[in-house]
């Protein structure tokens, strides 16, 4: 078992990982920037180390600061959470070089799946369907235009070094391609230090459904069923659930098989997520693989009754997977709503500030993952995710009804939040029917 784990993150996910460490009796080390000295995750951990000023580049994204913190506290492992350095292969490599266990997949898996064009190639070679598009990075606009003409407009331009919806543009017509191509290259360079761009067909009214996978050092790979994540703004998720409503058994079987096949093909170890788009016709395509714990992992935990973070720590220590595929069942339904410090009335603009009042719901079937308390400063420097509200029930209707009540019972003052918007989503007749797709938010389906 691991001796001591440094948690290289902040907010709710740092607290979640610290909780799992405690459950296993492993001491935990928090790291914090100057802005986070009084943050809840710092108080939760057994030890805490300051790692630099508020801007993330100088603290939570500083590989030397985090590796030094781990070594100076005698930690033998690092859990990266999600975001920040979690999908940075150089960080995984730096941990390996410092003889620290990286709680996640191999450096090679992080690297190959982090290069989105390489990921497409690897998955296509494994027989997983990938969206029609460019074979690799596209360097000039004429080449992009040629591919777009072949696959048909609209297309998506994406950053090869990116993911998570960052540095992406939809192009509806050939006339818009030149401007969009230059803009995406510029954004990709700024965000990822890599201007490489690739082209994919854009699927209208698609659903975003992903499959949780888990592998171990012995080469076993299992899936933990699917999550529906179609309610998104700016290509980032707001609401997730498991099971995905209304999937035919054949489609579900196809997705989970493709996910496990893809993960096996790259000898994947630890927790990961294979993301897919599903067309209205039922055809599905690999989008990308997230080589880390996913924000929305709690919905999978609620329907399977399994603890993914505890399993991550055990598998990272070299233990075999604690479950066989046939033991992993999906029971009931679970739903997650992400409470962001954003103003839905102003196009989800960020809303930094100080939390002056906070009352969170509790009770049967309600789980709260919160990174904030009364008095917390919501800083411009970090992701606006404050709290994840998770409900479950014997049926989807039960879980949704609970979410409706739970959201109504949330009081959060001092910053604008997505709560009013989320309440409209869970009350919406199309959502209640499970008829969701990725363009609903931008099309204004849930506007007040």
């Amino acid at each position, binding site marked *: 078992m691991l001796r001591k784990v440094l948690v290289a993150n902040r907010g709710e996910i740092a607290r979640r990982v610290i909780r799992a460490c405690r459950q296993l009796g492993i001491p935990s080390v928090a790291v914090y920037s100057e802005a986070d000295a009084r943050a809840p995750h710092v108080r939760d951990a057994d030890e805490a180390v300051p790692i630099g000023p508020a*801007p993330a580049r100088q603290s939570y994204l500083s590989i030397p600061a985090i590796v030094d913190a781990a070594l100076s506290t005698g930690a033998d492992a690092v859990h990266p959470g999600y975001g920040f350095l979690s999908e940075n292969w150089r960080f995984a490599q730096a941990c390996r070089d410092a003889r620290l266990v990286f709680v996640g997949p191999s450096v090679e898996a992080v690297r190959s799946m982090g290069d989105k064009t390489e990921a497409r190639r690897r998955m296509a070679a494994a027989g997983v369907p990938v969206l029609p598009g460019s074979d690799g990075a596209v360097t000039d606009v004429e080449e992009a235009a040629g591919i777009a003409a072949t696959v048909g407009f609209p297309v998506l331009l994406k950053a090869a070094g990116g993911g998570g919806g960052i540095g992406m543009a939809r192009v509806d017509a050939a006339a818009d391609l030149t401007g969009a191509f230059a803009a995406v290259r510029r*954004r990709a360079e700024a965000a990822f230090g890599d201007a490489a761009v690739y082209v994919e067909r854009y699927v209208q009214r698609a659903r975003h459904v992903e499959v949780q996978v888990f592998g171990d050092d012995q080469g076993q790979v299992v899936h933990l069923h699917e999550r529906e994540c179609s309610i998104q703004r*700016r290509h980032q998720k707001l609401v997730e659930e498991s099971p995905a409503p209304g999937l035919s058994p054949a489609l579900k079987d196809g997705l989970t098989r493709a996910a496990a096949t893809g993960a096996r093909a790259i000898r994947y170890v630890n927790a990961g997520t294979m993301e897919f788009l599903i067309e209205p016709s039922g055809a599905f395509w690999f989008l990308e693989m997230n080589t880390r714990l996913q924000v929305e992992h709690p919905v999978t935990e609620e329907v399977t009754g399994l603890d993914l973070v505890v399993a991550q720590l055990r598998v990272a220590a070299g233990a075999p997977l604690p479950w066989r595929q046939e033991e992993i069942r999906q029971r009931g339904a679970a739903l997650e709503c992400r409470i962001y*410090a*954003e103003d839905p009335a102003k196009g989800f*603009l*960020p*809303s*930094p*500030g100080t939390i002056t009042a906070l009352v969170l719901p509790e009770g049967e079937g309600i789980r709260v993952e919160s990174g904030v308390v009364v008095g917390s400063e919501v800083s*411009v*420097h*970090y*992701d*606006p995710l404050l709290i994840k509200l998770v409900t479950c029930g014997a049926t989807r209707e039960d879980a949704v009804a609970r979410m409706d009540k739970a959201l109504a019972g949330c009081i959060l003052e001092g910053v604008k939040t997505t709560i009013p918007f989320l309440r409209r989503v869970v009350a919406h007749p199309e959502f209640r029917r499970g008829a969701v797709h990725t363009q609903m938010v931008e099309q204004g389906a849930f506007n007040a």
Partner: protein
Amino acid sequence: MPEEIKAHITGVVFQIAAHAGDRVQAGDPVIVLESMKMEIPVEAPRPGSVKEIRVQVGQTVQDGDVVAIME
């Protein structure tokens, strides 16, 4: 008539998109703020020329702060 351009959110100046003397159209970004991992342009309210940029890259600005002046 000089006109103040104000930030509509709190953030850190990520990029200066227009400079003193530049002609801009309504809706052109004058500066770009970064807040909570998002890039948010502060746009020219009308066509005209930029008289002065009042902020620097890396500076934190509050909602309502003047970031630039238009001629």
